[in-house]
Each structure stands twice: as C-alpha cells, then as structure tokens.
C-alpha cells in the first residue's frame, strides 16, 4: 500500500540470520583480524573521525531513521553499536519510514525528530535542492571512500544494492538466462515478475529489447513500456520485497527482476533451486541525509555519517542485511562466500549497469506515473 523502495527492504536477513544462528558463529571481523588485515586497512583509510569532541559528546542521542523491519536491528548492530562505543552517543534506529514527503513536512514545520535518514541515491539531490537538508561536511566525511560520483552535496552513499535477474535453476541448468530469454515466453514458458514501480523493470525491458547496458540512459520509457506490455498475462508485478520472494517460493514465477538481497535469501532458502545472475543487473547506491535542524546537531550527525563508511561496519551490514558496501575497499577485502552476494564486488560490478542518479533525479517522478499507467489496464 505504501511505497516499497529498496530501502523499505533492508530487512529479513538479520532476523533470519539470528534465528538460524548463523550470525554469531560467523563473525567476519574475527576472520579479518586473524588475517591481520584490519590494522592495515585502518591505516590506509587515514583519518576516520571517531574521536569524541566535546560538542558531539553533548548530543544526548542520535536517531537514524530507516524503513523498518529487520533493518532496525541490522543497522543498529552494524552502525549504531560501534558508533556508541566510539563516541558514547547512543544511537536509536527508528523504523518510521523517512519518505521524502515526511522529511519535507518535518523540516518545514521546524520540528525534526530524525538526525540521519536512509534514502535512495538520487533523493538527496531532489530534497537538497529544495533546501531541506544539511550539506555533508566533507571535511569530516571522507568522500574518497566511496565510488566516484556517489558523494553528493547533501548526501553520500552508505550502502548499495542491485536489481538482478533471478531464475529457476532447473530451467537454466547450464548457463543463466539473459533478458532476451526473459521476454521469450515461447521458449521459456511461465510467469515473470518485475517491480511494479518502474525501477529495475524499465531497465530489464530495455535490455530485453536489445539496448546495451552502458547505453540505458537516457532511457526510452515508451520503448520499455511497450516491451513490458508484450509479456501480456505472463508478467505479474511484485510490490514488496517479500512478495517477490514469495512468488518464487510458491512456484508462481520462473524468472524475475528482483533485489539482490532477496535473490540471495531465495538461493539459500531453496537450496539453490532458485538462483540469480549479476549479469545485466542494475547497481544502485543509497544516500544518507541529514534533515535541516536535526535534533542532535550537525556535528554529531556528520561524524555518524563518516563512521558508516568504515569497511568493517559495512561488511557487517552486508552479512546482516545483504546490502553491499559503498566503500570499494570493503568489497575488496571480502572472503569468497561474501563476494558472491556483494553487488559492489569488482567482478560483479563489471557485468552490471550502474543506475544513473542524474537521470532518476530528473525523471523519476514522471517515469513512475507513466510506467504505472502503461502497465495497468
């Protein structure tokens, strides 16, 4: 019923992992420590500002707002606890869904209750240009830690995710399908699924229509809609991350364009009967932002933003929630079993398209509406 962006979806995995007892057993940091990597990485990263200055220490608590679900516990564990250990400032994670509209209303009313908010990459420019956000202080936050272009004036990428092609292994035992196969319902009968809200789905349609992955943007939306309509009754659209999972678990669909976090859970839960390919995935950044007038003050929030780029913490998040590090250094030091699930791991990035934040910033609003209209009725 409400929007379900990827951010809504930072979820499931943490609790699942905890339930399954995998989390405690596999503390990756210990592995790194044993390998002697941590000190080296720490030195290489230079000045991560974890020391507590008097001003920051004054902040009574810091509220990180995300989209609820298991991301509340996951982000608290990966980012909140170590920050509290470093600075003494307690971090509370609030699953209150910091939709752009809500941030806007809060800032305009002058009563802001969130310090740092989770959002999609291009959103920080949309909101920032309306004057609703604090600028990121790149004297405190090290922009060289993230991929070029993912540090914006009002936000920085703190994790990554991808739209990937998930499929039933028994249908493609030898090699993974392409988006051409995705649209070939004669050769591969069965239903497909894509996100109802345009993102990822549009790219899948264009790729299926012969567009190369480095030529997706500026996107031809009408062409994508025509391609989506060509599937007729063979496509059903998922509207929450869990529903995309459920469709595969129930055997309702044979292929789908879904979030990588969901694909890796599916692979595990189905013992490999459902798997995914990074090939022609769409690689996307989050952006974390500070609403203007945040309660804990800018300084503490900036320090918190900076601390979230720490590789060890980002790797923890990958373990807990399946969201990739935005810091390429973190991706580079992953053990093999985590490389497989990290959308930002170099080999995986090499075969994916990278979402154009510029295109989405300018076109997203109109594109969603036209897409919804195009696929309905």
């Amino acid at each position, binding site marked *: *019923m409400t*929007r379900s962006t990827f951010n809504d979806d930072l979820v499931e995995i943490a609790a699942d992992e905890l339930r399954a007892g995998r989390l405690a057993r596999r503390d990756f940091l210990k592995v790194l420590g044993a390998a002697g990597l941590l000190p080296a990485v720490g030195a290489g990263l230079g000045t991560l500002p974890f020391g507590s200055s008097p001003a920051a220490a004054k902040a009574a608590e810091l509220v990180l707002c995300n989209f609820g679900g298991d991301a509340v516990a996951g982000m608290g564990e990966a980012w909140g606890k170590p920050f509290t250990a470093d600075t003494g400032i307690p971090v509370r994670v609030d699953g209150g869904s910091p939709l752009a*509209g809500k941030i806007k209303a809060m800032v305009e009313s002058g009563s802001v209750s969130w310090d740092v908010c989770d959002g999609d990459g291009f959103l920080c420019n949309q909101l920032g240009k309306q004057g609703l956000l604090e600028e990121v202080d790149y004297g405190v936050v090290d922009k060289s830690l993230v991929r070029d272009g993912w540090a914006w004036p009002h936000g920085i990428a703190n994790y990554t995710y991808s739209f990937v092609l998930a499929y039933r292994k028994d249908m493609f035992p030898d090699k993974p399908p392409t988006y051409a196969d995705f649209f070939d319902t004669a050769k591969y009968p069965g*239903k497909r699924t894509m996100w*109802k809200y345009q993102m990822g789905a549009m790219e899948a349609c264009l790729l299926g229509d012969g567009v190369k992955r480095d030529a997706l943007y500026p996107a031809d939306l009408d062409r994508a809609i025509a391609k989506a309509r060509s599937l007729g*009754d063979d496509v059903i659209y998922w509207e929450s991350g869990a529903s995309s999972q459920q469709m595969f678990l129930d055997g*309702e669909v044979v292929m789908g364009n879904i979030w990588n976090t969901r694909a890796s859970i599916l692979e595990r839960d189905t013992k490999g009967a459902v798997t995914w390919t990074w090939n022609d995935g769409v690689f996307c950044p989050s952006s974390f932002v500070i609403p203007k007038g945040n309660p804990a003050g800018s300084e503490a929030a900036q320090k918190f933003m900076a601390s979230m780029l720490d590789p060890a913490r980002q790797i923890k998040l990958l373990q807990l929630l399946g969201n990739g590090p935005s810091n390429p250094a973190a991706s580079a030091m992953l053990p093999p079993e985590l490389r497989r699930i990290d959308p930002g791991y170099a080999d995986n990035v090499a075969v994916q398209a990278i979402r154009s934040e510029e295109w989405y910033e300018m076109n*997203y609003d109109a594109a*969603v509406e036209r897409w919804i209209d195009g696929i309905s009725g």
Partner: protein
Amino acid sequence: MAKRPLSGEPYVGFLLPATLLVCGLFLIPIGQLVALSFGGLEAPTLRWYEQVAATDSIHRILLTTFRIVGLTTVIAVVLGYAVAYAMAHMGERQRLALLLCVLVPFWLSVLVRALAWLILLRNNGIVNEALLGSGLIAAPLPLVRNELGVVIGMVHYLVPYAVFPIFATMRGLDGRLMMAARSVGASPFRTFTDVYLPLTLPALFGAGLLVFVFGLGFFVTPAILGGGRVVMLSEYVSISVLQTLRWGLAAALSVVLLVATLALIAIVSRVTGVRRMLGAS
C-alpha cells in the same frame, strides 16, 4: 419557516464535541492540503486540476476505480442483504452461528486476507488445484492478479460492513406491519416487495453508501490481488504522495474524489429517502 436562532436548537450542544474535534484536528489539516492542491497561498494555481482534467491516464484510473468499486458495492450489498435477512429471521441459535461467521473474518487484517486469497486463488492455489484435480478444468482459471481477484477480495472485506446496518434495521422493523399486509391477503412476495423492501431500503442504500466510500479508499487489496495491473485511485494518490512527491496532484485528486462522493450522496438521497441517513428528518 422563520429562522430561529441556534439557541432555539436544544440539541446543538450534542453536535459540538465531535464537530470541534473533526473540524479542528482533521478538516483544518485537510484544508492545508487542499490549499496545496491550489499551489499554496503564495502562488495560487490551477495547474494540478488542469493536469487531472487533461491526463488520459487519470481518467482511465478514475473509470477503473468507479467500475470496480461500483461492482463491488452492488455485490457486497446484495450478499449483505441476504445474510442480514437470514439473520433477522432465523432462530436464535442459527442467528448467532451466522453472526459468528460474519464477525470472525471481520477481525482478519486486510493484509492477511489478501495473502490468504492468493494462497486460495493463484494458478497453483488451492481452488485451482482442486478444480484441476477433479477434472473440471484443463488449465488453471485466472482467478487472481487481475480485476476478478480484486473484486473477490474487496467484496469479502466489505460484506460485513453491509450486513450490520441492514441487520440493525431489520431487527427494528415492526413485524406487525408485515402481518397486517399478509392478513389483508398479500402474497409473501408482494409483502416483501411492497412492504418489507421499502422499509429496509434506506438501510440498503445507507449500507451501499458506506461500502462504496469505503471501497474508494482501498488499495492494499487491489495492490496485492491486482498483480500490479489494476491501479485504483487511492493507490495512484499514494504514488503521488510517496513516490513522486506530487502532493498538489494528490490533493487535487482527493478533492475530485470528495466532490464526486458528495455528489453521489446527493443523488442517492434524491432518489431515496436516504437523507434520513444523514440525520435530516
């Protein structure tokens, strides 16, 4: 009739608490939103209304919405009338058992219901598997992830909302009227059409109105059971609010929805005595 001062209305005080609450904490906030639909006070504009008037996709969505909600209302009210009728005329034990059946699903969260319908109706769901297994059909019927699924889910949600007001009215009917009709020789059918139905008609239309406006607000059910290809107005508004930040458009659509609904109420009240539903005597 000469206008009396309001102080001549002894019951005005009864209206006040609720009216103050709804005006102060609901209508004023909504008013601020409506102001948004005209672009705010600083730069008034009709652009959002022009967009509503000029956009084909919005017209299509309005049509889809009114078609689905209209169909749902008719079905839900007819089913509700039948259940209420049975409940009003059954023995005590049967009535309570039936009441149980109506009340229990009333408590089922709209989310859980939608999931349950998927389990029942999807291609490899319980209903299709049973039909296939019995040899009645050769291929699964498309029961869900389309408009049919949406109507089934919405009717299911709305029937109890129709049952209760109709049942309350039927319980309150003076049985002697019907006995009188029968005693002067009217057939059971004539008694029903000439006496019973007219007496319960206000409740029937009241229930229909309730179900209709309630249906207009639906979007969890269409979103899940429509398979992404049935988009109703509320969902479109939510997209404008949450996905695309077009609050002005969302507000303008809400105003359109409100005006349409009020017009409908006015028309229905002309046709029937439903004005009584709204308190006019």
